[in-house]
């Protein structure tokens, strides 16, 4: 099963959620700034990278976890990708799309805009890290829901 986390720019909320899912971040404590900056693609993607589906890792049930960005498409992104999947004869149950935008707070929006769009990394990065730390438990929550709802279906019993 392919689990794809998507958000506006694909560099903060989706990366954090996907890394929690893939086991690169521990859910037990709020990560420090160094922990967050060590994640793959965290606060790194620019406009030319948008749209590509990036691999993050495997979870404990053998599913692959990916991130991507979708700009202003919102909920329609999932509809469009499922249309393409149906044209290509890809079964719908192999794909899970997770929108992480509802869990993004305004600190992440402002910090992400300053750091990624305007290029003011020195000002924007501390703001977006603070926002991620505030919203961290919400990302843990959505990952928990996805794991219990979809990811466990792939579990292979001994």
């Amino acid at each position, binding site marked *: 099963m392919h689990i794809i986390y998507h958000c506006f720019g694909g560099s903060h909320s989706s990366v954090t959620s996907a890394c929690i899912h893939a086991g690169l971040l521990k859910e037990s404590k709020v990560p420090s700034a160094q922990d967050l900056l060590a994640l793959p693609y965290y606060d790194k993607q620019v406009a030319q990278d948008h749209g590509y589906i990036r691999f993050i890792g495997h979870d404990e049930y053998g599913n692959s976890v990916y991130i991507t960005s979708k700009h202003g*498409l919102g909920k329609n992104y999932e509809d469009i*990708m499922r249309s*393409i999947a149906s044209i*290509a004869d890809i079964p719908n149950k192999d794909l899970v799309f997770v929108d992480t935008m509802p869990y993004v707070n305004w600190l992440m929006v402002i910090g992400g805009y300053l750091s990624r769009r305007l290029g003011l990394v020195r000002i924007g990065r501390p703001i977006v890290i603070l926002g991620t730390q505030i919203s961290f438990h919400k990302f843990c929550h959505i990952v928990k829901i996805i794991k219990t709802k979809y990811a466990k279906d792939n579990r292979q019993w001994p």
Partner: protein
Amino acid sequence: MAIIYMCPTGTHSSLVAANLHIGKIDLTSSVSDILHLPYYGQVNNKPGFFLFIGKDNQERAVYTLGVYHEAEIIKRSALDLLKLFNKERDFFFVDVSKFMPKVSVWCNAFLKKEMYPREKIAVTLKENLKEIYYEVKKYNNYI
């Protein structure tokens, strides 16, 4: 094999391009021919709406897809999605949204219904028919 034409609604410039591809209309078609194409101008404000238009002379399926104004993002994303299943070589994504009048896209997006007259869009598409033809000709030499 499939060729997917993308435009903001999936029922305007992509429909004209797909019909050019399968040979239903050609360079000499008039505005009324465009207006009388099946499904023309059925704006439903639902990106992700796709239509099967027909098969071309090389037995390839031709589709249209509505993608709002993010065709470039969807093209990259879709090719990466198909790569996960080793199918990326069988699909071509063609962006024809630049041949639509820009104002119509914004009108339909904000006002949530077909405010911009469909006849005006057809006139613009007729003016751009030659450019659409050259775009389509890259993918089908036999039209």
